[in-house]
């Protein structure tokens, strides 16, 4: 396994961090500002993709930035798992940027410069998390993400936005400082290092009770993964503009949380240790409760974005569930779901935003008949929801299938039941939206005033919807990366 020292990972992270400066400076010229954003997004994807061949072949890129605490440098490492996440995030950011342009301009939003600049910093932090070589670096970028997404969540500046912002920070900063930091310190004190090592670093270092406590601290501490009871910030964050909800709370922020937990499971604890101590049960317990509870609550939500938020909470726990199964197919399914869910959910959010731009409607009960006026949007929504439910021929089917096989492999038939029930529930809260959109009688107002969404919104949502289909037929790159990450 060769490790190449290179500045590529740093460049991939910094391009948008430094790029925030020209964005801030071109505040008066919207076209130039958006041009910068697109340029940076394309550049970032190119830089990330440039490292793909080596990683697929088994190599890694490393870079040490500073060694402040002995044994724990601030360092970057691009391995298969990190590349997987970074690829998804940087690819989807391109489309989010295009979508943002359509959305923000159509709604004539205020403070757009602050929006684009914060977004740039946030994606920088996301890639930073993907490329972290140890827990400290991950924590650094995790906090950077929390702080840079605050202006995005509170974008509207009204009382509700501010309240949600406070809730957001309370949950996310509170858990990261109160739970993750002590867990990191205890880990450091036990082992003297925080590096991500395949097979984990904690084997044999402490008693089962201590390790159990550590696991719980980490899992609950990375609240961005939306595991109950620290999921409350996600629905509250829906007050943000839809591109923010789509990308950050469908892809970047929430996946960062899951990614962090998976890193801890695979590279700090290690599947073998967890298997020996029977801790997989802890993970599957938390995940199952979250999945079922979130799916049930989603049924009761009339606000479309809030329904999607609860759906996300449930789907995120699929990934933890898969990892908790500790079986080959289960872990593969869990990790694959990161990609499948990302594409599917972002499509759904894009559609929700498009609906709002075209018709100013937020509540599902008001959206009867809209499908006939906005066929492309609603069809994309249909595809996205199929992916989330896990039906062929959409990408979501592959990850769900792996999860079911994994549950059977691990002799956990109860989990099979959880998976099936939650799929049914997902169908129950998605299909009515599509059905009513296409087949229910529309109100006068709808017929009179609504047309399709603007083009800049339509293109991204169509692309991501098609990608969800495409991933069913061509999941190879992601499959390869996942396999290399789990079984090097």
């Amino acid at each position, binding site marked *: 396994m060769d490790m190449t020292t290179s500045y590529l990972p740093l460049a991939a992270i910094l391009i948008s961090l430094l790029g925030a400066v020209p964005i801030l400076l071109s505040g008066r010229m919207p076209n130039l500002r958006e041009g910068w954003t697109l340029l940076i997004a394309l550049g970032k994807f190119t830089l990330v993709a440039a490292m793909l061949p080596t990683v697929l072949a088994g190599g890694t890129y490393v870079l040490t*930035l*500073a*060694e*402040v*605490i*002995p044994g724990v440098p*601030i360092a970057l490492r691009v391995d298969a798992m990190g590349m997987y996440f970074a690829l998804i995030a940087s690819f989807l950011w391109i489309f989010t940027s295009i979508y943002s342009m359509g959305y923000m301009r159509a709604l004539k939003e*205020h*403070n757009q410069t602050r929006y684009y600049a914060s977004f740039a910093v946030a994606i920088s932090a996301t890639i930073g998390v993907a490329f972290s070589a140890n827990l*400290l670096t991950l*924590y*650094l970028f995790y*906090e*950077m993400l929390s*702080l840079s997404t605050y*202006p995005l969540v*509170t974008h*509207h*500046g*009204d009382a509700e*936005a*501010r309240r949600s*912002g*406070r809730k957001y*920070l*309370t949950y996310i*900063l*509170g858990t990261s*400082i*109160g739970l993750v*930091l*002590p867990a990191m*310190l*205890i880990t*450091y*004190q036990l082992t003297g290092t925080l590096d991500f090592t395949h097979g984990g670093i904690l084997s044999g270092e402490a008693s089962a009770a201590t390790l159990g406590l550590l696991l719980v601290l980490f899992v609950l501490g990375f609240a961005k993964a939306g595991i109950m009871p620290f999921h409350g910030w996600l629905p509250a964050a829906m007050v943000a503009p839809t591109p923010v909800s789509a990308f950050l709370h469908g892809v970047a922020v929430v996946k960062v949380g899951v990614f962090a937990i998976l890193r801890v499971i695979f590279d700090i604890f290690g599947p073998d240790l967890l298997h020996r101590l029977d801790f997989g049960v802890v993970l599957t317990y938390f995940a199952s409760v979250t999945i079922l509870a979130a799916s049930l609550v989603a049924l009761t939500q009339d606000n479309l974005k809030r329904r999607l938020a609860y759906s996300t909470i449930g789907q995120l726990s699929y990934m933890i569930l898969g990892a908790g199964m500790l079986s080959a197919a289960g872990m593969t399914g869990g990790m694959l779901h990161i990609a499948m869910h990302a594409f599917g959910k972002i499509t759904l959010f894009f559609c929700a935003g498009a609906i709002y731009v075209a018709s100013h409607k937020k509540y599902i009960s008001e959206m009867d008949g809209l499908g006939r006026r906005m066929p492309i949007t609603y069809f994309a929504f249909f595809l996205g929801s199929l992916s989330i439910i896990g039906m062929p021929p959409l990408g979501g089917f592959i990850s769900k299938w792996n999860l079911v096989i994994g549950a059977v492999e691990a002799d956990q038939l109860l989990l099979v039941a959880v998976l099936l029930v939650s799929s049914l529930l997902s169908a129950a809260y998605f299909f009515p939206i599509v059905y009513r959109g296409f087949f229910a009688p529309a109100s006068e107002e709808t017929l009179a005033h609504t047309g399709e969404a603007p083009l800049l919104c339509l293109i991204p949502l169509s692309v991501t919807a098609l990608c969800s289909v495409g991933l069913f037929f061509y999941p190879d790159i992601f499959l390869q990366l996942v396999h290399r990450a789990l079984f090097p």
Partner: protein
Amino acid sequence: MTFANLHMYVLAVPLLTALAVNLLGRRSRTWIAPLTLGALSFSTVAAALVLVRVLREGTLHYTVGNWSPPYGIELVIDPLGALMLLLVAAAALLATSGALPSVALELPGREHLFFTLYLILIVGLMGLVITGDAFNLYVLLEITSITTYGLVAMGKGRAPLASFNYIIMGSIGACFYLLGVGYLYILTGTLNMADIAAILPTLPGTVAAATAFAFLLVGLWIKMAFFPLHGWLPNAYSLAPTGAGLLIAPLMTKVTIYLMIRVLYSIIHPNWALLAESGVQSALVWAAALGIVCASAMALGQRDLKRMLTYLIVAEVGYMVGGVFLANETGLTGALLHIVNDALMTLCLFLAAAAIVYRTGSLEFDSLRGLYRRMPVTLAAFTLAAFSMIGVPPTAGFFSKWYLLLGGIEAGQWGYVGALLFSSLVNAVLFFRIIEIAFFRNSAADDRPLPVTEAPAMLVGPLVLSALALVVLGLGAGGLVDSVILPAIAAFL
């Protein structure tokens, strides 16, 4: 002027400049800025050179008046002392730069008096960190205190009353310290720190030594506002003139904590095992933890930015005292690193407050609305300092907190660990409350460009420098710890 005595000139130049400022400043105000800034720049550069020299050659000694120790007064500059000297000089320079416009606004016509006291205070602080004589320490402590009493009393409104209260409490502290030194003198017959440290272990009978220890510590605790002896601090620091707060807040308590470490490790060498056994050590760490929690809670109740910051100072003192009494290397590293970091963080926060007060005249939370549009640079620096206080990497505050937390875990002092985490969360609440008011609480869709009216460059310059220093110190903390702090601790233990 020879290079050999550079460390003396670090002190001598500002002292003589104090005199010059008073005489020349009477005639014309324009003398004051160049004199003060010039003298302090010289001191900063010289202190940096001294640090380099000490790191290369080892501890420097200077015998005052050529009376050799242990009878004469000696200045001892070891790497830690040199680092503190540089810290005091640099912080004083930045504070003075910020104080000049502030004082011109708040105390017109009295600047020459203000800066005379200011410079003498700085000289006192610098002397405190490099003295090698216990009684000389008392004298310098009182020099800094008296000038502080005067500076605080120059404020508006209730400031003289706050200053008088400070005088009473501060004098009790100083007298306790003097009593402690007295006991040590009666026991050992010498006042030189190194000498006392050599003689003390050879003496039997620990009651007198323990009493001396107790008086010294309590005296210093009153001076550094260690909970529950902190009552004088919030009033004194928040009512002082803005320019005075810039110097006093970052430095006075931190230098006093450094003095406590010096007294513990260079004079007394306490028997940590005995302290741990008798439960005293644990009790002190719990007291520190309680102080952190109470001070943070009291900060939550404040409606004025400056008062909130003064309660945070009290909480930070708890961090460092707790860290020292953890009695392990990690905790002491954390405490020493935190002295440097906290001085810079407090300086940055008070500079931001000074800039805001200069432009808007008030620090009540309600009047901070929409400030980010009007003073973006100030608020950006304030945000960075806030992150450091909360403990967000890669700012400096995170790394010293790491060491302190790790030390607490190693020592099994979970109350202290809990208090530190609680304090971080409370800081997050406190600062985000302000950030929210400043960033968002104007009318939501108001996109009108407001005129950007930053404070003058002399205030904003040091502000930006100290904010950047927080990041640089954060990333460079490893170097600092390795080259200065760890060797110093090794020399102590």
